[in-house]
């Protein structure tokens, strides 16, 4: 029915979505209603609750059936029109020329019903997290619509959507590694602490036969799951079967275990590339690559709107992937370390923070010491010295962060691109395109002014609306140079925002 080459060749065609949308919407609303019902009607008898639930379900089904019957999607020559003729009328026009991306998602219900969900995103900073239209069709129809609209968006390129080739083959082990080691370091440390603590408590409860220890062990295990296990497993499910390849000017991604995601975007939509490492991934010599792309939002992606173009991979492979997937963001970097002035600023800041911390903690530490001094049991001795020990650990943390901040942060101002290197435990190398910068702030605090250093903040359009990336402390002249280059490029009309 929809066998067409380019969008301009499309026959004018109106259709409804697949009826499974009625079930999906009813199910989603019913769950929310059930929760409210069970919270608010504890006093009601079970038969009454069952009657209310059944009536609500029938009403919801009728409501969503009517909404489905009166909602039409019209594929025109120049645009897609979504029109709802219910009480709350809606007419949404999505011109093909404004579509930034059209992606496919398949959840469990979609798989069972042989359907796919088309997520259409427009080039817009507003409403950036939610797609402009989410349309459910039979799988083959959704594939064809996507192919045809993609043909228009990524003009002059043969659509390789059916291909399943990947620039690099990520194995299941890679996905598991990524899940485990891409969780932020602080979160991993806290999760690991609760895991070890839980095991110790479990051991003591077994040895001493005390039930209180067992309760603590369960809570600690629960916290371990919240901080580490759940995010890691979520990553593994989300990135299962990860495939990435570039065809012409378009990058294609495919991944997902329970819900599958097929995403594509033009290279011109990439505003910045970030090479990310956590402490543990660095120890393993692995890094992942993230792209800041505007207009690929998917409300079902679990909030992850910045696509990864490489999972945690060997640093050499990451570099190779950068070359193959985004050579536009590869250049010879000669990072400039923070100047000596920055060292002074960071040391003074560290000393001030330490002085404030000590002055705040000294009184409670003395109080705690005196209150627990009278008891001689082991736990009291621990509490007696707990605050001074914690304060000392934080002071060591401040000293360490000052040292690392000096060592890590870099700035590189290239001809076409510029780079900020940031991060203490989790590090980021952010490579940015001058032509995508919207605004620059160069800030100098009272201490920074004394040592002639400043901090830069780059504002860009991002997948979540707007985003700012901060630099370390560098000379004002170096940071102002970024603005000068942007203006020079703009004057040469090279910098027209695309």
């Amino acid at each position, binding site marked *: 029915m929809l066998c067409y080459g380019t969008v301009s060749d499309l026959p004018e065609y109106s259709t409804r979505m697949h009826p499974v949308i009625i079930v999906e919407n009813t199910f989603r609303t019913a769950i929310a209603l059930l929760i409210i019902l069970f919270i608010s009607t504890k006093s009601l008898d079970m038969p009454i609750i069952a009657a209310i639930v059944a009536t609500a379900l029938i009403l919801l089904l009728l409501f969503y059936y009517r909404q489905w019957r009166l909602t039409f999607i019209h594929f025109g020559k120049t645009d897609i029109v979504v029109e709802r003729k219910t009480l709350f009328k809606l007419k949404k026009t999505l011109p093909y020329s404004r579509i930034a991306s059209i992606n496919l998602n398949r959840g469990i219900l979609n798989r069972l019903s042989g359907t796919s969900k088309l997520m259409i995103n427009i080039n817009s*900073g507003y409403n950036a997290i939610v797609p402009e239209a989410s349309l459910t069709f039979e799988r083959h129809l959704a594939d064809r619509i996507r192919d045809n609209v993609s043909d228009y968006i990524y003009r002059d390129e043969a659509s390789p959507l059916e291909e399943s080739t990947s620039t690099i083959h990520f194995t299941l082990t890679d996905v598991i590694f990524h899940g485990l080691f891409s969780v932020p370091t602080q979160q991993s440390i806290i999760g690991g602490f609760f895991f070890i603590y839980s095991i110790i408590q479990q051991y003591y409860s077994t040895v001493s036969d005390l039930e209180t220890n067992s309760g603590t062990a369960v809570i600690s295990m629960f916290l371990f799951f919240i901080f580490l296990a759940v995010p890691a497993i979520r990553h593994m499910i989300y990135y299962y079967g990860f495939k990435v390849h570039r065809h012409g000017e378009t990058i294609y991604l495919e991944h997902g275990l329970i819900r599958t995601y097929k995403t594509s975007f033009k290279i011109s939509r990439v505003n910045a590339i970030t090479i990310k490492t956590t402490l543990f991934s660095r120890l393993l010599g692995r890094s992942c690559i993230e792209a800041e792309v505007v207009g690929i939002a998917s409300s079902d992606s679990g909030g992850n709107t910045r696509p990864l173009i490489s999972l945690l991979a060997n640093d050499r492979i990451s570099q190779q992937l950068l070359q193959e997937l985004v050579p536009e963001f590869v250049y010879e970097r000669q990072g400039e370390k923070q100047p000596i002035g920055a060292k002074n600023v960071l040391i003074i800041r560290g000393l001030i923070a330490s002085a404030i911390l000590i002055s705040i903690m000294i009184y409670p530490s003395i109080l705690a010491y005196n209150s627990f001094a009278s008891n001689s049991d082991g736990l009291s001795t621990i509490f007696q010295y707990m605050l001074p020990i914690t304060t000392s650990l934080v002071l060591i943390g401040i000293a360490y962060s000052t040292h690392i901040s000096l060592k890590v942060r870099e700035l590189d101002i290239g001809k076409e691109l510029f780079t900020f290197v940031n991060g203490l435990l989790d590090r980021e190398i952010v490579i940015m395109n001058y032509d995508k*910068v919207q605004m620059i702030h160069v*800030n100098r605090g009272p201490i920074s002014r004394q040592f002639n250093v400043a901090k830069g903040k780059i*504002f860009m359009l991002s997948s979540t609306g707007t985003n*700012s990336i901060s630099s370390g402390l560098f000379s004002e002249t170096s940071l102002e140079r970024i603005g000068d280059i942007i203006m020079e490029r*703009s004057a040469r*009309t090279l910098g*027209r925002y695309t």
Partner: protein
Amino acid sequence: MSGNTVDNVRSAETYRRLNKKCMLSMYINNAITYIILSIILLLIFKLITLSDELSVQSIIPLILVSMILLLIYFIIGPWIYYERYRYMITSDKIDVRYGIIILRHILVPIERVHQVQVSRGPVNNLLGLANVNVTTAGGVATISYLEVDEAEKIVERLTDLINAMLRDSE
């Protein structure tokens, strides 16, 4: 600032300063904020004095010192802000330098501007001042405490520049 300001802005690509009235606006705003804060703190003091706990009462001197420091900041701040505030609008960029404790330099290429609007709060309205908010896809930059006439002329000028750039790009 005089009526021919915008013409001056057009011709001379130099930094411009604000009208001294901006200090009055800031002083009024600061006074209102300080009065509201003082009332809240008086209520907190009342509650603290009812408490017999020494540790709770010991924070009173800390609050008093903070209020004195804030008062000094509110008195000196507007003057420093006025002295430091500079802005420049050329044919290709908006450049603003300001700050009391932290000095900021904001640069917005006009090519990236999506929307320009004039906004006026009640105090600024009373004094005939307005802010110009410049919206880009990456955030908003504000040129504050301009005279209404000048703010509107700047908006007009920026709109003209943006339209001219759009025409050029077509």
